[in-house]
């Protein structure tokens, strides 16, 4: 055994009804290092972390902290062992102030049992100024952006004097600048002897900060190495268990006529004078920083939000889009961002989640044709490689990547001309990403059009024919394929013409 092992798990197993989530997991984290966990969604990383945090109980196996066997009963108990977890889904109370959220569950009290607001305020101010954060302690959390809240979460964990911090996709919702701040923070923590378990799908980040990397696949540990002994291709190959030759399966398609044209679209206070078009067989991208107005434009085109002026032309004809229904009638569909909020209906079955888009095709002549429904949906699921125990499984028990594939299937069942994708690959694994890229290529090959909003520049550059860049509610640049490079996109994304 190596010296300085802070956390070790041995032969951990965990089953859920129908699936073995973890199978004989051995894994250890050295003191003062960053240990990255890589693996596709559903590979078991998050399950293992939930066991370490006491949310799940393992069926068998043992956890050791400082080489002493421990039993972790719940997250509060885990905290007493110095374990803190920054969950993928943020845990906060929007209606409470920063100070209350920071000290949630540990509010200081006077000797009479009353909350000591003065001490709380003092501690919070000390803390915020030490971290160099420009917030007021009585600001309500709901007034902050997601990335601010993510930073606060991270700081909260550190504030807990944690010795082991689990970070599950900490950078999925924060900007590059904050990622840099976070990484600096991690370096400081390391030097203080804190161990960090870092889960991320962004492999470039992983290689930037990880000391050790463990790769999960299908509930087992495939390999565990020093980061210096691995490279990105090797990690991807180990994660998916096969080699993906071409990460971006984009094909050259001869472009047809203009399929969709947006003219002078405005929405007061949200976006202004949006002009763009997409042709048959084309994939266009929308780049920009978080809050640039890309999602808002797409939501308006899809009929989810109102517009104040401007119009939408399809096949050279002006079309009225006042609701999602109008949009669907014009064969335009949109995979919305934030799967949990706008996408899935958690407790309903995967089949219903998919067939909701084609109700008139399965419910006609006075009754529901369930057999046809099973057939249509089932065929599409196998085409898109959706992994689900059955068609009746509630969608919430699927991994993020599979949920996303179900939602895509739902829209593809409508056989759309135009597919709008808003951050389609956020938080999903390499394999599912590849399926989505393949589908985009397929759409283009059939002379249909794809519009992709993404914050991941490599995928925009890899998949698109043209890229529009937005900033502060305006389109600030348009790049042809020959002009694609990360630097010029970032330049437009921060310019204010």
């Amino acid at each position, binding site marked *: 055994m190596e010296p300085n092992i802070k956390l070790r798990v041995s032969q951990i197993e965990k089953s859920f*009804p*129908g699936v073995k989530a973890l199978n004989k997991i051995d894994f250890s984290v050295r003191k003062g290092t960053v240990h990255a966990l890589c693996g596709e969604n559903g590979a078991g990383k998050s399950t293992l972390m*939930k066991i370490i945090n006491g*949310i*799940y109980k393992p069926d068998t196996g043992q956890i050791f902290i400082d080489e002493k066997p421990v039993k972790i009963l*719940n*997250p*509060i108990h885990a905290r007493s062992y110095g374990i803190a977890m920054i*969950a993928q*889904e943020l*845990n906060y*109370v929007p209606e409470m102030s920063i100070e209350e959220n920071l000290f*949630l*569950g540990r509010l200081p009290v006077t000797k009479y049992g009353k909350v000591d607001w003065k001490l709380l305020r003092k501690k919070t101010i000390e803390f915020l100024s030490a971290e160099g954060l420009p917030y007021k302690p009585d600001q309500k959390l709901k007034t902050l952006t997601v990335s601010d809240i993510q930073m606060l979460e991270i700081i909260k964990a550190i504030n807990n004097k944690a010795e082991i911090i689990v970070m599950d996709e900490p950078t999925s919702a924060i900007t590059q600048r904050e990622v840099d701040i976070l990484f600096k923070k991690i370096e400081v923590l390391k030097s203080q002897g804190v161990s960090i378990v870092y889960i991320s799908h962004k492999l470039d980040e992983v290689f930037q900060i990880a000391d050790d990397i463990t790769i999960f696949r299908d509930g087992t540990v495939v390999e565990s190495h020093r980061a210096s002994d691995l490279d990105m291709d090797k990690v991807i190959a180990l994660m998916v268990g096969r080699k993906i030759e071409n990460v971006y399966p984009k094909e050259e398609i001869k472009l047809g006529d203009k399929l969709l044209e947006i003219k002078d679209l405005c929405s007061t206070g949200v976006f202004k004078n949006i002009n763009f078009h997409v042709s048959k067989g084309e994939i266009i991208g929308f780049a920009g920083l978080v809050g640039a107005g890309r999602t808002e434009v797409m939501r308006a085109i899809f009929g*989810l939000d109102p517009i104040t002026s401007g119009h939408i032309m399809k096949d050279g004809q002006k079309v009225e889009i006042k*609701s*999602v*229904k109008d*949009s*669907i009638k014009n064969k335009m569909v*949109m995979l*919305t961002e934030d799967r949990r*909020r*706008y*996408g*899935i*209906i*958690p*407790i*309903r079955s995967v089949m*219903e989640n998919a*067939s*909701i*888009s084609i*109700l*008139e095709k399965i*419910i006609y002549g*006075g*009754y*529901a044709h369930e057999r046809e429904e099973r057939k249509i949906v089932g065929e599409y699921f196998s085409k898109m490689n959706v992994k689900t*125990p*059955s068609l*009746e499984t*509630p969608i*919430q*028990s699927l991994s993020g990547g599979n949920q996303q594939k179900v939602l895509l299937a*739902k829209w593809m069942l409508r056989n759309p001309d135009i597919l709008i994708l808003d951050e389609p690959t956020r938080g999903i694994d390499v394999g599912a990403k590849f399926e989505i890229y393949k589908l985009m290529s397929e759409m283009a090959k059939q002379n249909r059009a794809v519009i992709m909003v993404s914050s991941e520049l490599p995928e925009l550059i890899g998949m698109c024919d043209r890229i529009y860049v937005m900033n502060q509610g305006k389109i600030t640049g348009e790049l042809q394929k020959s002009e694609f490079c990360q630097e010029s996109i970032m330049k437009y994304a921060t310019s204010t013409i």
Partner: protein
Amino acid sequence: MKFRNNRVMEKYSIFIVLFVMIIICSLLNENFLSTGNITNIIKQLSVAAILAYGEMLLIVSGMLDLSAGAVLALSGVLSVSVYKSSGSLIIALLVAVIVAVVCNIINAIMVTSFKAPPFIATLAMQTVARGIALLFTKGQNILQLDNYVVFGQGNIGPIPVSIIFLIIITIIIWYLLRHTRLGRSLYAIGGNEEAAVASGINVKLNKYKVFIINGILVGIAGVLFMSRVNAGLPNGAVGYEMEGLTAAIVGGTSFSGGIGTTMGTLTGAFIIGCLNNIMNLIGIDSYVQQIVKGVIIALAVIWDIHSKTKKTTKVVLVEEKEKVVSN
């Protein structure tokens, strides 16, 4: 295949509960299974079951109706008085349905256009409807209903009219949930309203529809109730919405929306109906009966939450959050 079996068990557990209950009841009292008693049980539970369908549809789509009992009384007394002046059963029935539908359209306006939480909106309607019922009758019961009692007490052939109503309504509600786009849309709306909107479902229109259906059901229940007691009672049916809610919840309707079935709700109504009946048959004190019913509701809700916790990880997380907050 363990997974599937669990689902099947879960799906039919409520029917098994009823079955076991019937066996126990028949052992406790030999009259329980007599035709007369069974008919009596169904007659008595029909009003609650019809209200339960309305509540179930509303809960499935993420809402509820606290005004059902009061609106039932209002539409009932208006229907009774229209019958007394017109003598037409058809018009009396129509009046009850129209009054209850109007009340529910107002509920729907408050909920959809003014974004009032259904709990508050229908609570306000409860107070208003009860007030109008009392104002209209000056607080007096309307007596001597003559032929009006045919709804609640009459028979067509060997079958009581109220049971015929219950059967027809059950079939319609089952069909609605299972075989129409409305049904699927309601599950989607209750399961995740924002996702339903983004999927092209007209949430507002569907909420109107479900309130209107609830209105029709409440109106019919009003007629059945008044004719069963042979009086127009402006103070009648107090708390009947709770009877409906109880049957729906016991029948497996999930209070967080998106889950609920017609047969489950009917079974829930039967469980409550049998419970009431057997407790009367073996002479249990009526105060004790209330306690027993309360305990049953608590158990049903605990069961509902427990079975969801097993199924999903998300619920676990939410509970953890609550734990942290409450500490």
